[in-house]
């Protein structure tokens, strides 16, 4: 029970676990995977001690985790889960079923590289792999954002009836202790409210069939409904984050620009590296160098208009992807290029948890091409 806002020191994983405890979802179906496990363990401990009464389903695979979430959410339960990496790949088959059934499931993803070779450390390959499954995807820079994004994702998901992920960098955020402010339970309750789905499976007065077959005469229309819901999520995100800002004093937008106004070079990135870049920007600005940062918070739906507006006057744009696409342009670089309609530079960095330091960010700003830390 949190009676009033309080400052605490928590890992990002525990911060998300605390957010879930405060939400107290009806059902959480989850399978262990590093670096997600602190999230589920945190909630499991809260349930074991009577601090939350979520029904936990300790399933036997991620495929079953998402399948059980679908069964529970369709039945009218507020439903959450958490996963990463191979877990996301394993549940891939059912991820688009969740969005097609318009189920507002919320999943925390402690972003981790995908095999092979086996690697348990951070990159964004798992999030990128699920980018076309109809899930809203929000990225977090630090533990505070991971905590806050959990509430924002839930409210947005329930508003537009699409599932949503809260991405937090594996280990870098999930396992690192940071200071953050927790919100009082009363504020959370006011923000998220009771979950009362208009339609659900356990309505015996008006029995419904979920998951019917759609032939060529209707499949297209069903997919279009997901498309429209995702488009609707743009404006709703703004409304919801505005409300959250009034509640918490923390204002979140789809993108966050840092010193981009008169910048000559701007790096575009997502996740925890944005903190490092921001610190380099401050340092280089002090040296009179015109550099800036554009952080992408909302990845799906992608904020093309906002990105275009922020970057249209920038001479040199460098996009940093923490994932690798083969035989094609990198994912975030492609999105930014579409928004910008102009050439840009693309950098791949941090695969499989390869650290990147301020020195390398400076090198990227300065246009260095070769480094063991990044690939230009």
């Amino acid at each position: 029970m949190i009676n009033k806002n309080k400052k605490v020191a928590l890992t990002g994983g525990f911060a998300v676990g605390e957010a879930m405890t405060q939400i107290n979802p009806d059902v959480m179906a989850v399978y262990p995977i590093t670096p997600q496990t602190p999230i589920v363990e945190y909630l499991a401990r809260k349930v074991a001690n009577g601090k939350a009464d979520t029904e936990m389903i300790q399933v036997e695979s991620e495929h079953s985790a998402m399948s059980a979430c679908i069964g529970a959410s369709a039945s009218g339960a507020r439903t959450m889960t958490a996963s990463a990496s191979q877990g996301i790949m394993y549940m891939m088959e059912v991820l688009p079923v969740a969005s097609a059934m318009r189920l507002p499931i919320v999943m925390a993803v402690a972003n981790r590289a995908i095999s092979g070779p086996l690697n348990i450390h951070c990159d964004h390959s798992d999030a990128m792999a699920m980018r076309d499954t109809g899930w809203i995807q929000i990225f977090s820079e630090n533990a505070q954002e991971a905590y806050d994004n959990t509430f924002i994702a839930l409210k947005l998901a329930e508003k537009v009836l699409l599932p949503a992920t809260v991405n937090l960098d594996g280990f870098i955020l999930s396992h690192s202790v940071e200071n953050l402010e927790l919100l009082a339970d009363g504020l959370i309750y006011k923000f998220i409210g009771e979950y009362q789905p208009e339609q659900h499976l356990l309505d015996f007065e008006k029995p419904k069939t979920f998951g019917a077959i759609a032939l060529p005469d209707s499949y297209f229309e069903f997919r279009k409904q997901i498309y429209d819901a995702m488009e609707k999520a743009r404006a709703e995100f703004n409304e919801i984050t505005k409300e959250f800002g009034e509640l918490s004093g923390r204002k979140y937008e789809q993108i966050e620009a840092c010193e981009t106004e008169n910048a000559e070079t701007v790096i575009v990135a997502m996740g925890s590296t944005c903190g490092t870049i921001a610190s380099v920007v401050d340092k280089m600005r002090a040296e009179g160098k015109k550099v800036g940062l554009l952080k992408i918070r909302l990845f799906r739906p992608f904020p093309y208009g906002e990105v275009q507006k922020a970057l249209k006057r920038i001479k040199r744009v460098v996009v940093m992807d923490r994932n690798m696409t083969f035989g094609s342009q990198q994912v975030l670089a492609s999105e930014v290029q579409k928004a910008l309609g102009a050439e840009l530079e693309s950098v791949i960095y941090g695969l499989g948890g390869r650290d990147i330091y301020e020195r390398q960010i400076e090198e990227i700003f300065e246009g260095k091409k070769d480094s063991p830390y990044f690939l230009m």
Partner: protein
Amino acid sequence: MIKKNKQKISTSGTCAGCPIGIIARTVLNGTDNPIAVTNATGCMEVTTTIYPNTSWKVPYIHSVFGNAGATVSGMETAYKALLKKGKIKTEKPVKFVAFGGDGGTYDIGLQALSGALERKHDFLYVCYDNGAYMNTGNQRSGGTPFGASTETTPAGKESFGKEVIRKDLATIVAGHHIDYVATANVGFIDDFQAKVKKAFETKGPSFILVFSPCPNQWQHSPKKTIEIAKLGTKTCFWPLYEVINGKYKISYRPKSRLKIEEFMQTQGRFKHIFKSKNKEALIKDIQGKVDEEWERVEDLEETGAKV
């Protein structure tokens, strides 16, 4: 007799002679409690839910092929959670049913089913076993019997059809130490009905494996479905038994066991066996396998050994 206004499903999209409608109806009519159903991808699903139509007059959800066990776990848990919070009210407790074919149960859905059984969710799983992936056009499954010709184990000069026996699914399920497991047969409808009733009365998971001839792919006349189903049990190819709290109990003991040929010769999928130059050896082998399984079940019943 089913009163029309009480009908919980009206199937019409199946192939002629397909017993899937009988199976679904028998199960749904086995309780007066409200029922919510999930269904693995397969013949039952595709023939009953082509948008904008549905045959189901009870809540129904289909997700993917291999997750009926996990989906029903989520449904049943959601119900528990909503009940606890006073968010759902029904006069009688809700019963949860998962349907899957042999492909969706013996093979791709086995892990999800195993997890659901181990976690002891309160639900009934019904596997309708037609011995191959019939919805995709008769490819062999873990439930396909030895010697059957399928599109992926076709009989030919060098092949007599499927070279390995089917999994013993009922025993695999019983190995989860659940309270009620039974085999059933659409050709023995009273027995099937009684088993459904018992399954619904069971607290926790229960499982019924029901024999379901497929006229299209077994290649027999649609008129012969029930007759062939009966032969399956009368030859002991499909023994009927229950495993109650781990103990085997045979439900039907043929007075005089018919020879396996009497079952096999009714179906095109075994036709090649009778034309083979190894006919006698093959039939002897198959009869031996049937005898072995029947004797195993008899032994288990006699000794009272628990699974």
